[in-house]
């Protein structure tokens, strides 16, 4: 089954068309990178998948998006979609709680009360987010004390804590130093064994390093999609060639 599938998907803010006739299939347990110049609709695409784009009142869409075979628009309870499809933002955001409470914010909302279970989730998610060793002695300290790279990994742990099946990341490393970026790329690669990961990135090298497949979007349209190496070394479209060669961006 396809993890995420967009079928004839269009979206717009007021009259401003952002995405046109998108048909995409994202494979399960793999990393797919979405590349393209600023304003091409990458972020809107991500937000459409977990239905947070709809929070903007001028947003409209046509077409369908399926997650694990089910159309996200037929699910009445929109929070179920958002839980299933986690989204990590560009700026690292720590909620105004302790490190521990940041991770457990979601699970507690969903009714998990047993301390043993909560502790398991806490350690498990921080381990997966490659943050456990750095914070295990100060779980009760305010998360605001963490560095940018740590906060971003905390955001990933917080998202993992509600057990999503798909993880969306919107330029997660754009404000981070190379060391933190490296850590996050590693952890994404290990997460890809159990999750479907879709990452929007401005960093072509990053896409090349971690993505199994890459999608190139320009002006709201999919120009090309294929295995990452193929897309970078022998692109079909002239536009893809120019973009990956750094001629525009």
């Amino acid at each position: 089954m396809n993890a995420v599938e967009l079928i004839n998907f269009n979206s717009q803010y007021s009259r401003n068309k952002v995405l046109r006739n998108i048909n995409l299939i994202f494979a399960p347990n793999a990393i797919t990178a979405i590349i393209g110049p600023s304003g091409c609709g990458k972020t809107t695409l991500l937000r459409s998948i977990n239905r947070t784009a709809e929070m903007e009142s001028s947003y409209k869409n046509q077409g369908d998006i399926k997650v694990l075979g089910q159309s996200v628009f037929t699910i009445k309870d929109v929070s179920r979609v958002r839980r299933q499809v986690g989204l990590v933002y560009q700026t690292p955001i720590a909620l105004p709680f302790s490190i521990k409470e940041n991770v457990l914010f979601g699970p507690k909302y969903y009714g998990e009360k047993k301390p043993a279970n909560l502790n398991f989730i806490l350690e498990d998610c921080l381990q997966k987010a490659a943050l456990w060793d750095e914070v295990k002695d100060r779980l009760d300290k305010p998360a605001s004390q963490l560095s940018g790279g740590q906060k971003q990994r905390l955001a990933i742990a917080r998202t993992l804590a509600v057990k999503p099946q798909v993880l969306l990341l919107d330029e997660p490393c754009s404000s981070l130093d190379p060391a933190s970026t490296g850590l996050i790329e590693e952890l994404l690669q290990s997460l890809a064994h159990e999750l479907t990961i879709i990452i929007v990135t401005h960093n072509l090298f990053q896409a090349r390093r971690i993505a199994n497949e890459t999608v190139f979007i320009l002006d709201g349209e999919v120009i090309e999609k294929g295995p990452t190496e193929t897309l970078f070394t022998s692109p079909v479209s002239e536009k893809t060639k120019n973009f990956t060669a750094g001629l525009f961006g």
Partner: protein
Amino acid sequence: MRLRNFFDSLLIGILWLSGLFILLILLAIIVYLVWRGGPFVSMEFLLTSPKGLPLGSEGGVFPAIKGTLWLIGLALAWSLLPALATAIYLSEYHDNSRIATLINLLIQSMAGVPSIVIGLFVYALGVVALGWGISLLAGSLALAIMIFPVLAISSRDALQAIDQDYRLVATSLGVGNSYTLLRIVLPQAVPGILAGILLATGYAAGATAPIMVTAAAIIANSSGVLLEPVMALPYHLYILFNEHISLDQAYATALVLVGLLLIINFLALWLQRLSERTNAQ
């Protein structure tokens, strides 16, 4: 370049001086009150009723302190919840921005209504039409109407000042609005809301016009019975001045009023610290 530096220092100097000027005026008021009223403030003054002939020329202001506290407390009790609810609606829930604009406009107009007009309205409605008479109930209601816009606007701004990203993160975890509001937004906004409450308290404590026609009496027990008139510090002060009863007593009363507000301010600051400490955990 040198000219620009000069203008920079000039600007900073002017800003400094204006701040200093305000501080000096504030200090002057307090020093003057302590100088004129201080000698007449004693335990007896604080803890007894007005005496003498004309009434108020001797004795103390105890019922007026009690009355003012009752008025402020009840005014907050009536208006805090509606104001908070309005603020939460305006900052968190309005999908239809036209309704929100209308409500904002209404609140702003409400803030512009002169307090004596509010007093007269409550007089006509509560004191006369509903037959409450001059009473604590009517006075506190008038004050509640008066401070409602202050509370609503300051709480709205406090809520809106909370990082929008927190709501975004919560939503994208599938967490519901009300949970986010209770766990993140409201606790974070407490210092701002508290500051608004303080402002409103000071405003209500010093207001004379709305209680003149609805609640205040020259002498009363002020024991908190809703349908009885009360004494209040600003009204007492007004009578002492206006009827030339005793300037000394008037200054002492003014000092007590200012002191009361200072105590309330310190209490609020302390509460704020406390809530920040629990928030940090």
